[in-house]
Each structure stands twice: as C-alpha cells, then as structure tokens.
C-alpha cells in the first residue's frame, strides 16, 4: 500500500515502545507491544498512523496504540488519543465507521455440563431468533422514523422501556447505555433510512453471538463477585450501529474534509479529517456520534433479550432460574468526553478510542456501585475458535492511557489469505470437532473469519496485563457461535 515510510522506535521496557516526536508531531507516540509483536506491527503502516495522529492540534499526553494495533483508516485500529476541549479536535476517523461497535457479556446460572447436549439446538434457536445476514430483520420489530429518533436519544433505555430486558441491565452498560448529547437532527435521513430496518440485527463480518463457558480463572475473588466461576455458561454479543453508524461516519468525513480546510488544519492523511471540538462541525459530529452510539446500545440490548428468550425456549426455564444477567457492556469505537488528570489538573478531555476499550479503575465515579471496589470489567473477544477474556481496569490505565486498554485480537491474514488457507476445508466441521458449533449466514463469512486469520488474543491480553493497564480475571471458551 503506497510507499513504505519508516518510523523511529525506541524500546522503553518489554511492553512499551516510544515513537519520538519529530517533524510536525506535537507529542510522542506510545505503543504497547512485546518484542515479537512489534516486528509484525512494523510490517504495515500503523506506526506511521500513530505518528500522524500526534500531529493533530490540541492532542494531550501521547498518541497511543494498544497491542492489537493494526492499520486503519487515518487513525490506527487500537489507537487512543485525547484532545483538549478548547484547543483540540474531534475526528470521525478516530472513532471509525462502526460507531460504538462493542461487546456485551452475560453470565448465567448454568454450568457447562447443563448445556453440553443442547448446544446444537441452542445455536439453531439463536440463529432463528437473532436476525443476521442480508435484509433479515424481526417481523415483530417495525419502527417509524419518529420512533427511531427516540432510539437515538435513549439508547438501551428505549429497548428496556419497551420490555426488551430489565431496568437493572442499564446499570452494567458503559455510560448507562445512553451517551449524553445525542441529537437525532444531526443524523442524516440517509443514515436513518439505512438504520431503521437494521435495529435488532447482528450484521456481517466479525460480529457474533457466542455461547461459552469460564475456562480459566486468574482472580477467583473477582470472578466470584462477577458471577464468573469456573465452568459457568456465558454469552458474548459483539455488534454495533450497523448502516446507521457507517453513514454518520461517511457523512461527517465529508463535513470534516471541508472543515479541516476552513480551519487550516494540516492533514498528513485525508482520513484524519477533523474539526475543533469547540466548532459547530465538531459539536454536530459529537451529537450525531452519540445518536449512533445509542442505536448500538439499543441493538445489543435487543439481541441480549432475544438471547435470553432463546435460552428459555431451549432449556424450558424461566428468566430467574437461567440468571442471564449483564456483567458489562463496553464500547470499542467511540469518542467520549471524560474528566482526566492532565499534568496535575482535572480537565475535561475528548478521548478517542478506535478499537480500544475504556478500562476505569476501582473507585471511579462512572462505575456502578457494585463495581466500585473492583474496577470496570473489560471484555476482549477473540476469534471464534479460541477464547475471549474478561479483564478489569486499573489505576495505571487511568494515569497512563486515559483509562484505556486493548479491544480484541486483530487480524493477521487478509480475507483473501484466509480464503486460501481455508480452501477445501469445512470450517464448521473443523470447529465442531473442537467442540464448537458454528452457524453463519454466509459460508464466505465463516471462511474469512477462520481462527488462523486472527492474532492469538492471549498475546494481546498478556501485554496489557504485564504493562499494568488492565488485569486478567477469567478466560472464556466458546461452545456455540452465530455469525452474521
């Protein structure tokens, strides 16, 4: 892709690398990775992207990247950057196309042995109840445009009010499942047209619902408090704001290309286009982004509800006995206005997390009461054949990374390479032989999402754990997966 540009890199310790400030950079770059990973990371242009982000006006601290860093549009995936509210910028490319793509984890009262013989049936039921693939949606969920505006304003609360879930669910969702400042008027008609039939659908690519179990416990005390004891059955939901979020991003890239010219912001890459946080364009984007983020929260709430219904249908048990409760729900493509300590001063800043997760420590005011002593659960999905992790946020993350950590595995193979690697193999049969039942709307998706196409998520998690920006609680293993 284009010319190869090299970026200077200095090793700080086994887990961190510095990209020293040079040229137009306003600050250093900081990358979390181990020796082996950094070699892979250097193969694409993602480090240059870290350096590019460092050139943007009003950046605070360093331009950072988590160990799952890979090449993105403008900002790298795995990128974290905070900006001063008065002098800084907001960039749609720093959030990504799938606004509030994120993960929700539910625990249950069931153990692995309770469901072992019914995984097939469960996966089929989930596949039937949760729309995935082109054009599919629930016949019993039809929205008017007015109602869609309520979704954009209220997020998960909209779904709960209509009986999809319980009031407690919101307690355990980042930002309470509704980001402040949403304004549906800032979302284009086109975005609403794309989003309206897609609320309550999984979408394609790497999105999934995964039934699994707690395979390994690293911190038994915390695991018990989160209801994640060994062998307990869990559900992970990974999806975002669908076509609505993509359209909001696309609409605002155009606005920001124009705004960058108008405000005289020098861009090393068009996809870094941005506007001052204090400008009309900046404020309008934040209002549209919050609306799209709320759509995603409602989406995960609906899918979680149909997951609960699927369990009830298969196991003929009531909601209480099943105990499918939300452990937490995190965003991993978002820009948030948060208060952070900046050089000894409490300051409101705009933190962009693109393929990165918030990781707040114990005692943080944004955490629910029952997690005050623990810290924020961080959910790290892996690929469909291996495992996922639950971590906790730490004080060190708050100090060093504006309270942020990694978000997942990250691809190592292109879709084309994955296809070549999977040639002639039946992916679903191969996974079934490992005890994982998979259903996907398209064979193509399954092939492109083979486990080998991803980095081993345990390597990624190892780095953030050792670097102290989150700590391991449990590892989850999949039993059944539905893919879009």
């Amino acid at each position, binding site marked *: 892709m284009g010319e190869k540009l090299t970026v200077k890199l200095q090793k700080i310790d086994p887990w961190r690398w510095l990209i020293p400030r040079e040229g137009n950079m306003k600050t250093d770059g900081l990358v979390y990775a181990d020796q082996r990973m950094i070699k892979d990371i250097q193969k694409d242009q993602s480090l240059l992207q870290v350096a590019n982000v460092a050139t943007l006006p009003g950046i605070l601290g360093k331009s950072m990247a988590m160990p799952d860093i890979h090449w993105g549009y403008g900002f790298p995936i795995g990128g974290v950057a905070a900006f001063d509210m008065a002098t800084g910028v907001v960039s749609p490319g720093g959030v990504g196309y*799938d606004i509030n793509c994120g993960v929700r984890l539910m625990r249950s009262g069931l153990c692995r042995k309770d469901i072992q013989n019914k995984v097939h049936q469960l996966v089929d039921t989930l596949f039937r109840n949760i729309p995935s693939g*082109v054009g599919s949606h629930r016949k019993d969920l039809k929205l008017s445009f007015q109602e869609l505006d309520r979704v954009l304003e209220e997020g998960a609360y909209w779904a709960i009010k209509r009986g999809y879930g319980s009031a407690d669910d919101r307690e355990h969702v980042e930002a309470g499942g509704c980001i402040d400042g949403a304004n549906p008027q800032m979302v284009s008609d086109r975005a609403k047209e794309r989003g309206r039939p897609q609320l309550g659908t999984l979408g394609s690519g790497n999105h999934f619902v995964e039934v699994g179990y707690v395979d390994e416990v690293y911190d038994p005390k915390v695991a018990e408090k989160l209801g994640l004891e060994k062998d307990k059955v869990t559900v992970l939901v990974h999806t975002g704001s669908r076509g609505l979020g993509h359209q909001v991003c696309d609409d605002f890239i155009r606005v920001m290309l124009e705004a960058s010219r108008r405000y005289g912001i020098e861009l090393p890459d068009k996809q870094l286009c941005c506007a001052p946080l204090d400008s009309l364009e900046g404020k309008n984007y934040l209002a549209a982004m919050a609306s799209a983020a709320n759509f995603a929260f409602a989406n995960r709430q609906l899918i979680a509800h149909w997951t609960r219904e699927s369990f009830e249908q298969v196991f003929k048990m009531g909601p209480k006995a099943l105990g499918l409760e939300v452990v937490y729900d995190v965003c991993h493509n978002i820009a948030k206005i948060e208060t952070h300590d900046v050089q000894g001063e409490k300051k409101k800043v705009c933190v962009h997390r693109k393929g990165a997760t918030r990781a707040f420590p114990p005692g943080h005011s944004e955490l629910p009461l029952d997690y005050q002593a623990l810290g924020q659960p961080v959910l790290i999905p892996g690929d469909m054949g291996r495992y996922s992790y639950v971590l906790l946020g730490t004080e060190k993350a708050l100090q060093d990374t504006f309270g942020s950590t990694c978000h997942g595995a990250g691809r190592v193979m292109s879709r084309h390479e994955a296809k070549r690697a999977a040639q002639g193999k039946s992916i679903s049969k191969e996974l079934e032989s490992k005890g994982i039942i998979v259903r996907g709307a398209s064979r193509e998706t399954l092939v492109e999402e083979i486990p080998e196409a991803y980095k081993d998520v345990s390597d990624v998690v190892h780095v953030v754990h050792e670097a102290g920006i989150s700590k391991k609680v449990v590892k989850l293993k999949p039993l059944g997966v539905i893919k879009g």
Partner: protein
Amino acid sequence: MRKKFRFIDHTADVGVVVYGKNLIELFHNAAESFFSVLIDLKNIRETESRRFSLDAPGLEELLVSWLNEFLYLFETQGLLFSRFEIKNLSKKHLEATAWGEKYTAEKHPIKRIIKAVTFHQLSIQKQKGIWETQIIFDL
C-alpha cells in the same frame, strides 16, 4: 481486453485498483468492481433501472458518492446493479443510469457485504495515458 480492475490484498478489508481509458470508463469500472465484491455479476438480471444525478466538491468525492449510492440503494431497497451507463461526467457532476434487479436470497448468494466506501489513500491519477484509482471498501 484490458483489465477493468483488480483486487488487492488488505488485512481487514478489501481493496481494488480500477482502470479506465477515460474518466467515464473509470467510473463505470469502479461500479462493476463494487458489485463484484458483493456478488457474481452474472447473477443479476436487468429488471429495474435507476437514474443518478450527483454533485460533489471534487472528482474523488464524486467517485465515493457514486459508489455510496449503490450501498444506500442496496441496504434500503435491496437493489443490485450489473450494467451502468454514464452520460455526463465533469469534475463535480455525474449523470448516469444503472440496470439491475432486487435482491432475493435464493437467486443472489452474497459473497460479502460492503459497509462503507472509504477515502483512504484515494486519488484518481492518469499514468501512461490510463486513468487509475485505488479504492478501499470497509467490510
């Protein structure tokens, strides 16, 4: 016949390099490449048509707008296109017609879904008399 476009390997998404002897052919081939990511073009019959009249501040933005029309029509109306005729193209304006049909699951096995047409490293250039551009589709 010269190649209309070729796919390029890209870790998370799909890239395509599109060629054309003039800009009209470049835009035409870009449309074909878009639908070739989604589906086998042979599977699309011509039962419907749509007219397009688009404006953008520059040629590159116009190209993204042109392809975004297809994304929008596919997601909101299930329309797939296989034939394109560009009647008028300037730096800031495009007029065209496309023919195709509505998506049905049985007739149209979808290879992969495009979620966005990006501006990443997008530049339309003329090299040795041939117009060329690279487009990255977000999947």
